[in-house]
């Protein structure tokens, strides 16, 4: 629309069509990424790395082309923000419950609950310790960065609640994003070593890591069948973090 696009009238028509049908164009783009990834996985890597994992890494690389909203910052690809946005993501994730086994969920219920509390506490306090080691000393900054180590939503929610400066909030968001991306990439590599190969440990995994995007993407790249189980607990994590960090955890940090 506002792009200094080439003046050729046919180019303008093409751009206009894509502008008006961004979501459809996103289907095409992601489809092409998937075709390419699965081709590479099969023919170049002998199926040693799942095609889904390659597709996700390509997605992350594409995100570098933009800024805040990744590739969606490039006007041509604005539709990617709709396809990859929270609404469709959550809708699709809920639909995976169709293939989840309720008895597995029941059996892992307690472990999942403990994992949630452990995950939030460990992430927060380890985040605080690392920030402390890096030279941050005031309780507000420490708490905000620790909260960011939970997820990139807990960070700004906490920071805003306790009055952190905007650059500290930015750091906390970036910390959460690093966690999401690192989880996405490392999960399929480390899955065997941490016995992440059954619904039970997927539920624990979701509760411990908590970054819904990272958990879903990481599990998808590991074994698609595990996704609903990880998503189930991860979805409670951010809420729990938003509950604990600006209140109990902040008081604990302020006390020291």
């Amino acid at each position, binding site marked *: 629309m506002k792009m200094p696009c080439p003046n050729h009238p046919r180019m303008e028509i093409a751009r206009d069509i894509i502008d008006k049908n961004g979501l459809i164009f996103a289907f095409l783009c992601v489809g092409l990424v998937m075709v390419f990834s699965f081709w590479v996985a099969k023919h170049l890597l002998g199926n040693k790395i799942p095609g889904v994992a390659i597709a996700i890494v390509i997605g992350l690389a594409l995100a570098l082309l933009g800024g805040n909203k990744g590739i969606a910052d490039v006007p041509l690809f604005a539709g990617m923000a709709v396809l*990859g946005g929270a609404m469709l993501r959550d809708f699709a994730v809920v639909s995976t419950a169709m293939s989840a086994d309720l008895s597995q969920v029941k059996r892992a219920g307690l472990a999942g609950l403990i994992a949630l509390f452990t995950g939030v506490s460990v992430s927060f306090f380890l985040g605080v310790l690392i920030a402390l080691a890096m030279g941050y000393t005031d309780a507000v900054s420490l708490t905000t960065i620790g909260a960011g180590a939970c997820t990139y939503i807990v960070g700004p929610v906490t920071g805003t609640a306790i009055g952190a400066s905007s650059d500290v909030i*930015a750091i906390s968001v*970036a910390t959460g994003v*690093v966690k999401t991306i690192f989880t996405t990439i490392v999960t399929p590599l480390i899955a065997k070593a941490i016995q992440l190969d059954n619904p039970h440990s997927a539920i*624990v995994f979701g509760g411990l890591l908590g970054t819904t995007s990272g958990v879903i993407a990481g599990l998808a790249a590991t074994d698609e069948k595990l996704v609903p189980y990880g998503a189930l607990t991860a979805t409670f994590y951010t809420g729990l973090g938003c509950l604990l960090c600006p209140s109990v955890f902040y008081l604990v940090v302020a006390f020291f």
Partner: protein
Amino acid sequence: MKIYGVALLAACFLIGKLLGNLLGQLINIDSDIGGVGFAMFLLMAANIYLRRKNLLPPETESGILFWSAMYIPIIVAMAATLNVRAALSGGFVTLAAGVGVTVACMLLVPVLSKIGRGDENALPQSPEDGDR
């Protein structure tokens, strides 16, 4: 009809989100707590109930299964819209905290996975006292 399945999914989704937001309001946080989780439980319950009543023809089910097949492309699109640049340029604190915390939590997975596992020793999938 496929739309029945999609509509059922939409109903579960919206009710779940509503519950999540109500829970958030209840404890004074302006956000959604576990909305997706509640929605998943609703869908699992509906699945079991409708199957028992024989009200879930394959055609209806395929409306839901379409969306669960779509989530991987959606995840790829999501990955492409993350703020990767900020993550890379956030400085050392960001990297250290993000990576350190993730590794620590991952290492806890096998430890906490033992909880609630005691009653299924009969299953051959995990050798008891496996020393790895």
